[in-house]
């Protein structure tokens, strides 16, 4: 009886329950696998005590279940196999299907070369494509970066991008031959990546499409350019025989270490968010042969339906092939929380669900607690723990569990983080708020705060703050450098008095002073200094903001800092360029070319020497601007422009914070790329604020989420 589990199973034996959910999700293959009726399985799955236990579990299963590995991730096991099972809005699916259809229409194919499917991860992009390809009888040729790269042969080593480019050229332009193992395919994925389905087995289907999901490293600028030009070539080439589908999983990357302009000199040190535009470039996207279909996060209702279906299968009664006993089924409430925290990522939701289900006690417990005391007794008997059915302990347990399951989702968008700081809520400002905030997650509780020593009390006592900068730092979506610049851009609207402004900006100045990074080991110090400076700035802001912060329908806007820095750099470069030009005479000291000098070329006569940059920008350029009046062309008009300033606004002018409105999901500071969501101004802040809080509010989490279920269809 104790037949050792087959090898395959062993490999898959990732102790599910012992791993945090997010670690697994990154490995999760997004592959459709046949959905067979789930095999019966013993009632209790292990509690993650390690392999031994799990093997035991396996031993009990019958041998023929091998195919349907019970330990497999639910994501794989319950992947949709038909259009109807997809959690995507039918209109989207039709869009893709239509495109694919047209792509093989000889008359239209010219304009259906490149399909960019973009959307957040877990929005079922890949699944949609695979299902449709199956339906339409199309072969998928997938490109993967070789991961088991050998560095042995140095000379034959192409860069990844080159490999990719040649792959595109060969795979796309070759006539639809019978594909043996394609020699142009990069080395197959290493065995460590969970399951291999990349190159489908050679088949006789005549239609093919190239799928590019494993994008080259686009944060490396040259690679990105190479990728873009490869795509452009592909679009332009007359010999292309099959369409290319690029799947871009949008990621809101943390902008990297935001250093000052000098030390980065604009070379993509700041991380970019990954989206269709940043990956493919606007030129590619606007090409006639390209179409972008963007997927929205999966709507709550749809996800709920899908998950319920899966749960139905898992917890079906044993006779009908259910995996786990019905009694341990997570309650609806649990499901809703999971959905709420998944941010529309169905994969993540499913992973959380499986994780939760691996510990039936907790699964039931969460459901029970959340469904209220009334139902608790019914579910409560599942719990072995000495009759302690309800009360604080179980609630704490649930909370703790939820923290694990949903930890990934609690990160704040910059908009929310800013709101938290700038509204600087304190205890005792409004009785209603206090009641709501009592014992709420993410809110610093009153009793946690220490009293000030006596000598400081008179000047510095404030009502206890509800904001905990440490938590904020941990959850802030971007690094403190960027955060500070946003805060700097917006703070004035929240103050009443110049002294408050002073306190805040002084804090930021101190923080920036602390951020100094130089010397060999600056990289090692980045993390610490940024923490210090974040705390300095945020705490002093909280301290100096009036209490309560006046509400004047403030709108948060994007920081102008980067824009200004870019302009400054552009102007500096302009000056530099003029300096090098021969006709930039006015700037370059008297290296005037004198005809008749022996060898014309670079020789210039005169007793000149270089000018320092400072004297250029502060003395020469401004005066040249006056001396050579406007209307001159070329180099000089640049100088005159640089030398003149806009008129100073009159004294009646009321300055307002300008700049693009900060959309609630914006993370990126790169204005060209970020899409700003315009929202009604007055509601925006209140809404966002409410949302921040809601995220932590389990009771209300259901239903009012970051997105609107209707949002799934774009009105296009």
């Amino acid at each position, binding site marked *: 009886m104790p037949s050792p589990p087959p090898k395959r199973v062993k490999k898959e034996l990732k102790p599910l329950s012992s791993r945090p959910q997010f670690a697994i999700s990154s490995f999760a293959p997004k592959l459709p696998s046949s959905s067979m009726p789930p095999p019966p399985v013993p009632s209790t799955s292990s509690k993650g005590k390690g392999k031994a236990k799990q093997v035991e579990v396996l031993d009990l299963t019958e041998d023929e279940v091998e195919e349907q590995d019970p330990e497999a991730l639910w994501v794989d096991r319950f992947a949709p196999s038909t259009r109807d099972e997809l959690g995507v809005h039918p209109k989207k699916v039709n869009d893709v299907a239509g495109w694919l259809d047209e792509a093989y229409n000889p008359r239209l194919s010219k304009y259906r070369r490149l399909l960019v499917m973009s959307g957040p991860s877990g929005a079922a992009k890949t699944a949609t494509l695979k299902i449709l390809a199956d339906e339409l009888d199309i072969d998928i040729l997938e490109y993967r970066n070789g991961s088991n790269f050998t560095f042995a042969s140095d000379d034959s080593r192409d860069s990844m991008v080159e490999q990719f480019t040649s792959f595109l050229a060969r795979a796309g332009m070759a006539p639809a031959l019978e594909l043996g193992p394609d020699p142009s395919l990069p080395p197959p994925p290493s065995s460590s990546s969970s399951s291999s389905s990349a190159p489908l087995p050679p088949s006789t289907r005549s239609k093919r499409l190239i799928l590019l999901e494993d994008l080259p490293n686009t944060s490396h600028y040259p690679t990105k350019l190479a990728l873009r030009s490869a795509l452009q070539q592909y679009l332009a080439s007359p010999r292309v025989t099959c369409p290319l589908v690029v799947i871009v999983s949008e990621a809101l990357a943390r902008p990297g270490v935001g250093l000052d302009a000098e030390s980065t000199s604009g070379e993509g040190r700041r991380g970019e968010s990954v989206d269709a535009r940043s990956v493919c470039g606007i030129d590619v996207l606007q090409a006639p042969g390209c179409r972008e279909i963007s997927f929205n996060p999966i709507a709550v209702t749809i996800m709920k339906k899908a998950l319920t279906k899966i749960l139905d299968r898992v917890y079906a009664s044993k006779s009908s092939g259910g995996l786990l006993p019905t009694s341990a089924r997570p309650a609806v409430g649990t499901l809703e929380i999971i959905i709420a925290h998944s941010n529309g990522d169905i994969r993540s939701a499913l992973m959380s669900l499986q994780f939760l289900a691996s510990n039936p006690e907790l699964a039931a417990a969460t459901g029970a607690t959340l469904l209220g005391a009334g139902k608790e007794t019914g579910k409560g008997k599942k719990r072995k723990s000495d009759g302690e059915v309800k009360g604080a302990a179980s609630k704490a347990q649930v909370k703790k569990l939820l923290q694990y399951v949903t930890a990934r989702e609690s990160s704040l968008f910059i908009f929310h983080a800013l709101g938290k700081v700038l509204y600087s809520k304190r205890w005792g400002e409004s009785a209603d708020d206090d009641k709501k905030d009592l014992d709420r997650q993410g809110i610093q509780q009153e009793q946690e705060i220490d009293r000030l020593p006596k000598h400081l009390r008179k000047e510095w006592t404030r009502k206890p703050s509800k904001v905990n900068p440490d938590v904020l730092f941990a959850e802030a979506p971007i690094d403190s450098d960027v955060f500070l610049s946003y805060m700097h851009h917006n703070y004035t609207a929240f103050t009443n008095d*110049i002294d408050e402004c002073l306190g805040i900006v002084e804090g930021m100045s101190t923080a920036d002073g602390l951020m100094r990074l130089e010397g060999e080991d600056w990289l090692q110090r980045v993390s610490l200094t940024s923490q210090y400076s974040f705390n300095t700035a945020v705490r002093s802001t909280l301290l100096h903001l009036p209490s309560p912060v006046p509400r004047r329908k403030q709108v948060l806007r994007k920081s102008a800092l980067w824009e200004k820095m870019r302009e400054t750099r552009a102007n500096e470069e302009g000056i530099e360029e003029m300096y090098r030009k021969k006709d930039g005479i006015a700037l370059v000291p008297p290296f005037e070319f004198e005809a008749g*000098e022996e060898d014309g070329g670079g020789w210039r006569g005169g007793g000149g020497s*270089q000018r320092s940059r400072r004297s250029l920008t502060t003395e020469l350029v401004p005066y040249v601007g006056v001396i050579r009046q406007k209307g001159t062309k070329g180099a000089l008009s640049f100088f005159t422009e640089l030398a003149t300033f806009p008129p100073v606004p009159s004294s009646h002018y009321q300055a307002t914070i300008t700049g693009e409105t900060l959309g609630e999901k914006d993370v990126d500071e790169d204005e060209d790329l970020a899409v700003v969501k315009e929202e009604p101004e007055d509601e925006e802040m209140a809404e966002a604020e409410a949302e921040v809080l809601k995220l932590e509010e389990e009771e209300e989490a259901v239903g009012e989420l970051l997105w609107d279920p209707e949002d799934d269809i774009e009105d296009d």
Partner: protein
Amino acid sequence: MSLLVDKWRPKTLDELAYHEDLSERLRALAQTDFPHTLFYGPSGAGKKTRIMCTLKELFGPGVDKLRIEQRTFLTPSKRKIEINVVQSNYHIELTPSDAGNWDRSVVQEVLKDIAQTQQVDLNAKKRFKVVIINEADLLSRDAQSALRRTMEKFTANLRVILCANSTSRIIGPIRSRCLLLRVGAPSEAEICKVLAYAAKKERLSLPEHVATLLARISQGNLRRALLSLEALHTQDPTFKTVSASHSLLTGTKQSASDLDSVPRPDWEKYAGRAAEKILGEQTPERLLEVRGMLYELLVHCIPAPLIISTISKRLMDRVDEEIKADVVYWAAFYEHRLRLGSKPIFHLEAFCARIMSVYKQHLLGIGFD
């Protein structure tokens, strides 16, 4: 057409209009084996002019044949940096601080290059070549110590002339290896003399009080004086707009309009207006407005420390005696911050907010008296 300031720039030591004794000394040095030197003094005092004159004294008219080149240097991390280099057969001039953090490799490479090749021109008056390093005080410590080593090693083939605004940021070992030559700012009378000379050459009739005014606002910077002379001339060829009773000339208390009426570069006027804004009203809205102006200045490539100093100078002209000390104190304080940090706008804004706060307190105090 070149600018006045370049057109009439002295080319030999004899033509130099002021600091006769320094010229004399340089002439004497040029006869002997010329040492490494460090020229320092405020900007616009004539350091580079003097250096070029000295070169001429050393090598003769050959140094006038210049070429501008762009040299590419490879940093240890294989990054390419480009530096503009001006050179003749006898000397090479460069500004390593343009390379930012990589100034050290630039210094080393250039010096090594030069030092390893002997003077090939047999007619050359001297056996060595000269390397002029501009903005020596902006060199990083690394670069400075690299420089110090090479200075020792290759004295046979090269001389280094450093040019700096102040010696305070130059490390001791370099200072001790160089002959320090201070080029002080010219006095008002000296500037007037030079202005008159240039005006005469250009056949302009420059009234004396205008020259004095220009000299006064240039604050010892001859380059600025000459540039503003030319700027004023283009705007007002007869110099009629400048009245002899200008408050700067008579020494009475200065009014805002008078401060604006003198020919200054636009950015200075703009900074001055920012200062007026600060004094006009002290509210968060006003601070926001001032921030816009500060941004504008930064975008126009005006160095942030200069913005602070310009604004505070203007403030000094306008505020009461009691808080002048505060203004200077905070200006210095935030300039230090500027050096520490990387986001100038934070510190500039903090400075403005501080002044607003101080000024407001002061006004309130007066009210209560």
